[in-house]
């Protein structure tokens, strides 16, 4: 091979390298990281909307919904049985299996220690809340969800109402989303869940082995005008309130206005849609 040709090919090789980290990717990545106004877009929605989605974060109409939740931790202290009630409600509504072994465990909503839920809030001498009581944790339906960014098949996506939801038909079980979720809110079907569903709800499917699952904000109930099962299980305690964060008149917005609330690990820029009154 003559010298000139060699030089040409060197250049060609280098420009390919440049092309690999190309601008398209950069654009893509950057567009996902804007701290957006509370809107229900970004990430990738359904692919029918693919052409629009590029700049969706900035351009989404303010009328778009973003569902969220406000959880009053004090109510859970007043009624220690409430935690069990809400997780049971979710288990029943969604045919969540209960395995004898912890290793196989699948959970959508559960009670955990204050310091587990909010590891960045340090205390020297714990007050009662942080010492003894537990807080419910569930998927935060992040406005800038890392799980959606990581999923290689769009099996996890954000729908038009701002709910981060899964298409179990499409999930290949790579578990990238589980590594990506900074809240540990995702579970995997390590084995066939069918035999471990105690009370079957015939209005909702189960899952098969080899797919990931998590809280879906009861998209199937909201879609027909009902409240999420866990919120309903709270009765009129007001321990959990669900609503549209983008609607200034909604009850959640009222609560956010009247109370000091915190989110889980806000420093990560995921913009969780679940707020806690502590």
């Amino acid at each position: 091979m003559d010298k000139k040709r060699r030089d040409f090919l060197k250049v060609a090789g280098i420009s390919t390298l440049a092309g690999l980290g190309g601008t398209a990717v950069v654009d893509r990545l950057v567009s996902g990281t804007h701290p957006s106004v509370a809107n229900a877009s970004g990430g990738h929605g359904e692919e029918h909307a693919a052409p629009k989605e590029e700049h969706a974060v900035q351009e989404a109409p303010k009328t778009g919904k973003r569902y969220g939740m406000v959880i009053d931790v004090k109510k859970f202290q007043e009624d220690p049985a409430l935690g069990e009630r809400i997780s049971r409600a979710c288990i029943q509504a969604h045919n969540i299996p209960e395995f004898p072994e912890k290793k196989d465990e699948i959970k959508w909503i559960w009670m955990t220690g204050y310091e587990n839920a909010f590891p960045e809030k340090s205390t020297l001498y714990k007050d009662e809340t942080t010492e003894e009581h537990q807080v419910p944790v569930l998927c935060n339906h992040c406005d800038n969800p890392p799980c959606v960014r990581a999923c290689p098949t769009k099996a996890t996506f954000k729908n038009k109402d701002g709910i981060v939801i899964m298409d179990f038909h499409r999930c290949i079980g790579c578990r990238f989303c589980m590594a990506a979720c900074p809240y540990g809110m995702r579970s995997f079907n390590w084995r066939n869940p069918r035999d471990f569903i105690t009370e079957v709800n015939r209005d909702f499917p189960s899952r098969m082995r080899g797919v990931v699952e998590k809280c879906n904000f009861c998209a199937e109930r909201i879609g027909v005008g009902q409240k999420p099962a866990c919120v309903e299980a709270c009765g009129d305690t007001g321990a959990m309130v669900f609503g549209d964060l983008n609607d200034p008149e909604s009850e959640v917005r009222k609560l956010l206005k009247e109370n000091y609330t915190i989110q889980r690990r806000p420093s990560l820029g995921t913009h969780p849609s679940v707020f806690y009154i502590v």
Partner: protein
Amino acid sequence: MFEKALKGNNYYWMWLAFLGFFVGIAVICYLRQYFYGLGLTGMSRDVSWGLYISQFTFLVGVAAGGVMLVLPYYIHNYKAFGKITILGEFLAISALLMCLMFIMADLGQPLRGLNVLLHPTPNSMLFWDMCVLWGYLLLNALCGWVILTAERKQVAPPKWIYFFVYISIPFAFSIHTVTAMLYCGLPGRHFWLSAIIAPRFLASAFAAGPALIVIMALILKRVANFDAGKQAIDKMVTIIIYAAIANMFFVGLEFFVGYYSNIPGHYHTLQYLFFGLEHHGHVYNNLVPFMWGFLILFVIGFFLICNPQTRRNNDLWLGIGCASIFLSFWLDKGIGFVLGGFVPTPLEEITEYYPTANELFITIGIWAAGFFILTILYKIAIGVEHEVEA
């Protein structure tokens, strides 16, 4: 050219049968896993990636390591590597095939694997990883094959092939960079969330990959009458030394940042990996022996490949030195890096991971399958070499 793989002495066949035995066991174990689900492994919702993905990560590095022969030969015209670049290319092929097997073994729904292509998702690093891995595999297969065929016919390789050879160089870097990006772009996993991960991956890859090639060259010298040449081996050892130093330097930086900044998220995992992490009165330390093994093997291997006595005068010591470096970096990246990243969990709990027997056999079987393919490819390459010489 495949007929070259069909003629061999008894040792050749015994070696293949030995590997085939483990492949067979792995097939049975995989079928069990396929029908039961990944519950047959030691993974759980807290440690959701285990041996499969960690082996995958390490082997991507081995595949990328081959470029340390291709680059000096084709870009710097370093002639001594002429005879052994094919070893690097074929090593890359078998390492990549192992990677793909590990990915398939790890998928919960392997039959839906093609969804990654049916619903391409450019914001997922896994999508890009698949693109570059396949790209690098095809490039190596193409270049290796065309150049070997030309060599057999004793003609110069066609000119167009150099285009692909040059492209394969940035691809080699990209496969390991993108694999690092699988980890270092995830918020909330502090151990992985470090910009040094990609360079560190490359450094350990450029030590581990060539180390394996040196071992292979030393073995081939004894069993297949194939001499890579003293100069080539010596140069490779130099590359290994510098790459290994770079890797340890990067590891040291991680330690500094973790412990000097004293930010819990930044040192917890290092603490867990090297010293054991105390949590609610219990010390979790199941990876500590592996990480000290990493350090000790590094020191041993580094001494053996640096000391002129053991490096230049004795093939056995040199081989042991390279094997120590290879094993050391395997412990670092193929065990510690991936498994450590899951401790502590996002909910500040600690779950330790212990692989199951079924999982171990699948892992061993995939390694065996990789070496099976590697043996056959090397057999072909050396067969051609001998034919040309004859």
